């Protein structure tokens, strides 16, 4: 029979566990209620048209950034863990650590001040390329971190066997380590997509800077629309809530599939 304080601890642990389980449902419930019963209901046809276009813009930025960011993250992981000695890898690891210390808003500042002017021509596409660049940089550190840990899960004996058979670091990386983790690497891309699809702060700074600089910005991504909406309209807009649900669904589904693909290393 457990002592009273032990029973109290177990009860508290289970209560807090339920809090962690139910909190996301609370967030979703608020958004769903706002989407159904918001003060301002959008015109359906106009709203759906806008949503499809914004969704397309969001997916364009997220997919391009996830592909580029995850590839760079995996490549850097391969470089620092497999191809270089610990000493030679240190500058690259330091660069990844440095990137992870830059919050999204700093990346947005960088995109607005340095990336946007570097893109030639005041075309709408340049704005989206600028937004994609900052989201790519935002995605890299996490992809690198997961890739490094994934590569670390490959048994040292496997590498030792390949080395004993005469394979050098490049051959071991290309023909032993990468194939061993390939099914789980897909999860890194999905994880990067789930991070990229919800990125708002950096993208908004780029879009607003582009609008100030005279770029033809007629279209925002959904997360950046949500951010600017909250600043300008102090009402519960059902359209914004519905758009948020679309982003939420995309991010949560891709995150779930990514977690299942990557496996336990995600907890590390």
């Amino acid at each position: 029979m457990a002592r009273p304080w032990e029973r109290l601890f177990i009860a508290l642990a289970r209560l807090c566990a339920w809090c962690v389980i139910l909190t996301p449902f609370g967030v979703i419930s608020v958004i769903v209620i706002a989407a159904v019963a918001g003060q301002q209901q959008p015109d359906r046809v106009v709203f759906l048209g806008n949503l499809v276009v914004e969704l397309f813009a969001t997916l364009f930025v997220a997919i391009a950034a996830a592909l580029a960011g995850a590839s760079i993250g995996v490549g850097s992981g391969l470089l620092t863990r497999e191809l270089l000695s610990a000493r030679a890898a240190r500058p690259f690891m330091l660069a990844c650590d440095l990137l992870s210390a830059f919050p999204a808003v700093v990346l947005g500042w960088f995109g607005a001040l340095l990336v946007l002017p570097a893109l030639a021509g005041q075309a709408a596409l340049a704005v989206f390329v600028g937004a994609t660049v900052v989201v790519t940089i935002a995605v890299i550190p996490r992809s690198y971190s997961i890739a490094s840990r994934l590569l670390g899960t490959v048994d040292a004996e496997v590498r030792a066997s390949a080395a004993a058979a005469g394979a050098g670091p490049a051959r071991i990386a290309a023909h032993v380590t990468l194939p061993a983790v390939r099914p789980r690497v897909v999860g890194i891309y999905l994880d990067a997509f789930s991070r990229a699809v919800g990125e708002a702060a950096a993208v908004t700074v780029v879009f607003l800077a582009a609008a100030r600089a005279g770029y033809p910005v007629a279209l925002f991504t959904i997360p950046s629309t949500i951010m600017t909406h909250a600043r300008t309209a102090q009402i519960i807009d059902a359209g914004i809530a519905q758009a948020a649900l679309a982003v939420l669904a995309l991010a949560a589904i891709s995150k779930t599939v990514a977690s299942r693909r990557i496996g336990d290393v995600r907890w590390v």
Partner: protein
Amino acid sequence: MGLSAPSSPAKSDTFRERDSLVVAAAYAAGAAVAAAAVAIGVGLAAYGWKDVAWVLSAAGSQSVLRALGMTAIIVITALPVTVSVALFAAAAANDTSIGGITGPAVRESIQWSSGIPPVVVGLAVFFCTIVVRGDQAVVAAVAALVLLNLPNAAARLAQAFGTVPRDAREAAAAVGASPTASYFALVQPAAAWAVAAAVFSLAAQMVGETSAVAVAVSASDAPEPLSVQIWHYASNISMAGTEAAACIVLVATIAMLTGVARACARRNIGATR
């Protein structure tokens, strides 16, 4: 007639092409990371270095010190709430004797809930603020940070507890220690450094969080935390210098917290080795 060794034409190394491709791609990726880090670092230093002292001492609506104070108040309030709930939840997730069915449920839940975009969490808090007609920026920001980071914190802490070797826990159970006694006497002390690392990296994440907090505090006119203040003015190129200086202060704060987290993680590796 004797046996003759099979003669085979010299085979070309068909693997070499792929080796070269992988190596080239890995170096290109490394170069891209280094270039990005250097470009942002140099950009911040070039634009903002001279203004750091000025933004730290300036008064008014763009005072970095005041915004940093606001950030500190929000994080110091949100962090203990998040960590205490997550600590208990992690204990439940880590040991089914403590958590029962909630253990696997927490793990399953974290798989998708940590993917909820911060801006959506901020929007939920913003809607609630409008409904209750609240204008407490600190309460809204703290709520957004707690809601956003609970799954993440529970995952990090469960992982921290997971660094304690299973053998040690089984040995404790074998000598008759209850799961609770084992948690307090073995798991918590052994994972102390890993827990500290998780808490500091959570604090760094909270300091840098922008979108959830910016949306959540939209209904209020109160002073903004530093990340939100930077977001507010960063698109204005004419203020590039002062915003870069504010960014340097923000990045330095995050880097310091991340550095402490890494030091704690290293000590944990040393302790569990």
